[in-house]
């Protein structure tokens, strides 16, 4: 509608200006010929690009004050992608740097999550992938671990000793098979990955996990997160640090790097070639899931309007999260399911009631099923986790930690309602 928002029709973002000519000098050192162009107009030579990336990386970590004067161990989640390699290389150089070059006092450990069971890969194929991962990471000199993606907790082992166990895979396969749509599968996969990384970090006595999200993937996560109802927790899913999991903090030091920067850096700095590891998204059609659609949309829009990714990224930087007393039993994020007057949630529940003539108590409250476990579970989940759980046919297959968190939340809630009249509320 034309009157929505006022000045919506204009093409705010100017279409692509012409690229610098070949033979242009590097804008930093002005002596060597430029070999790469970033952000349309910034031309750099190889050495300056490497220096720029190193400087940016160390500045982000230095500013966060996470690493002080004593060595801290950090678990680096490695997927085989060019961004993962860039992260490893940047971290490795930062650790080996001299004290006057902003050395980072970190003790990295590398971990690879084997998700082959989900895609029906054979044991042989999965072990071959592990070998390929070891080949590209061994050169950095850090210990490399592998862990299978699992519904229940599993332990990280040295990648050279990694073995496949059929029965743990079965639970995972049953869970994913009982999920009706790809969008929910991908969201569920993300949650499981976080849980696995958090558990492994604790077992390896590390309180920090580094992820290789770059600005493009962050922009995609922001937009797809909004579409999945994650408004309240987007800043945790895409921000620099995420401390939802007790004792473990997730970091995204590469989020300021475009995917182009990260890839070019990994090539220029002599990293081994990236390892292709198939995933649920591989070769999927554009309309198979919200995540894939969003990625296609942003990448295509970026071609026509080159500041798309950076604008979405910077908008995302302005979000934050308010912690709630009882976190979501699944994602541990803030609960955004209080019925505020004239809100989308309230309107949806009202519509459902009207259309089916059912009262909320007889249904799970989030969809039209009658599953008792689901209806109690759903009360302890945030809006977007409810969407995932409602697409899981058999909620008993969910991770036991989630079910336990839910039970705990429920009993606390019962206790609170019993003593509510005697509680003195803070402020207000």
């Amino acid at each position: 509608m034309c009157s929505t928002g006022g000045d919506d029709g204009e093409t705010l973002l100017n279409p692509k200006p012409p690229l610098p000519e070949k033979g242009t000098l590097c804008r930093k050192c002005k002596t060597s010929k430029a070999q790469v162009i970033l952000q349309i107009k910034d031309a750099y030579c190889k050495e300056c690009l490497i220096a720029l990336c190193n400087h940016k990386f160390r500045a982000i970590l230095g500013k966060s004050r996470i690493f002080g004067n004593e060595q801290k161990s950090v678990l680096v989640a490695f997927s085989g992608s060019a961004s993962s390699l860039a992260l490893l290389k940047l971290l490795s150089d930062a650790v080996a740097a001299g004290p006057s070059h902003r050395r980072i006092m970190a003790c990295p450990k590398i971990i690879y999550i084997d998700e082959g069971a989900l895609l029906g890969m054979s044991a042989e194929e999965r072990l071959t992938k592990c070998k390929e991962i070891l080949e590209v990471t061994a050169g950095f000199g850090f210990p490399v671990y592998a862990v299978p993606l699992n519904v229940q907790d599993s332990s990280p082992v040295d990648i050279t000793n990694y073995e496949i166990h059929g029965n743990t895979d079965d639970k995972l396969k049953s869970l994913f098979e009982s999920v009706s749509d790809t969008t929910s599968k991908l969201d569920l996969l993300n949650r499981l990955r976080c849980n696995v990384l958090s558990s492994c970090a604790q077992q390896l006595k590390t309180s920090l996990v580094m992820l290789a999200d770059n600005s493009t993937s962050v922009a995609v996560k922001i937009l797809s997160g909004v579409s999945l109802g994650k408004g309240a927790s987007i800043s945790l899913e895409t921000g620099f640090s995420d401390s939802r999991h007790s004792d473990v903090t997730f970091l995204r030091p590469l989020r300021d790097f475009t995917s182009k920067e990260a890839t070019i850096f990994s090539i220029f700095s002599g990293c081994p070639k990236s390892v292709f590891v198939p995933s649920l998204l591989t070769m999927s059609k554009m309309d198979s899931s919200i995540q894939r659609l969003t990625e296609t949309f942003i990448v295509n829009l970026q071609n026509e309007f080159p500041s798309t990714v950076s604008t979405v990224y910077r908008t995302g930087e302005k979000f934050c999260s308010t912690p709630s007393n009882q976190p979501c039993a699944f994602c541990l994020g803030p609960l955004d399911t209080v019925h505020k007057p004239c809100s989308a949630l309230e309107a949806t529940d009202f519509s459902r009631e009207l259309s089916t003539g059912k009262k909320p108590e007889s249904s799970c409250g989030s969809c039209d099923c009658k599953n008792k476990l689901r209806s109690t579970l759903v009360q302890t989940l945030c809006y977007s986790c409810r969407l995932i759980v409602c697409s899981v046919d058999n909620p008993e297959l969910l991770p036991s930690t989630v079910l336990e968190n839910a039970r705990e939340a429920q009993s606390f809630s019962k206790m609170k309602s019993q003593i509510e009249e005697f509680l003195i509320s803070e402020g207000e």
Partner: protein
Amino acid sequence: MPVSCTTNCGRKAILRRPKTGTSLCKECFFDAFETEVHHTITSGKLFYPRQLVAIGASGGKDSTVLAYVMKFLNDKYDYKLNLMLLSIDEGITGYRDDSLNTVKENKNDYQLPLKILSYQNLYGWTMDRVVEEVGKKNNCTFCGVFRRQALERGAVMMGASCIATGHNADDIAETVLMNIMRGDVARLGRCCAAITSSDGALPRVKPLKFCYEKEIVMYAYFRKLKYFSTECVYAPNAYRGHARNFLKELERIRPSVIMDIIHSGENLVFQTGIKTPQQGTCSSCGHVSSQELCQACTLLLSLNEGKAKQGVSKKSHKIRST
């Protein structure tokens, strides 16, 4: 095989609701649609008794359904509102003439007073002339700014104390996505409210806020409401089109995405310390503005001086009012 209405009223279902996926008969659909709008109005406390409400009427499906439902609910639930239709003539030949005729029919059908204001009278420029001057890319900016002020002025002239517009759930979800893509944090914080009011300007109310666009069409179709259904001839080149297509594709994958996006928009928390523009008044026309000259006066100035293309460049984006 005949499907029966899921409310178990016993009647045969004739449609499936895009919003909930349930199958309903005609009567139950009307009832559900109307009750939901009533619920939005009461839970959002959108109106108060004896209020004069100007309904922005363009002759399109949203405003036609809005006018019909507001009148219906006003009678059924005795809101005690004084409803009026307010229509703006942008001066787009062929498009606006026809839709204005529809509005005149609405006036007769619903027995509501009607006021029509034109850009020509208010500003001295029709959209046809603006497009001749500015070209086909940035004209939506002019129209949007002019219309907003025109609605405001018309409502004040009629003595109304609020303006009701037909913005539907799809519009709001689209706006959330657009504002993220444009980095407009100030608008993002406001676009999900059912009542938007900037100090000094009349509050704007969106009773159809949670109605899916498809259901509005269904309602108009089954109620046999007449509306004008052509897209504005100048619309195709708008940036908003990208967000709209994206939303349509999203809806195909997961129909609840429209409400999910609105939910996200409502629950976004912003960091403190973000600069928001300050409210003041325009030195030329006295309208609410965060700059010395309000948007409409700025654009008019550029049109009259023949420097129209400057009005919508990136530089002027910084001086936009809220």
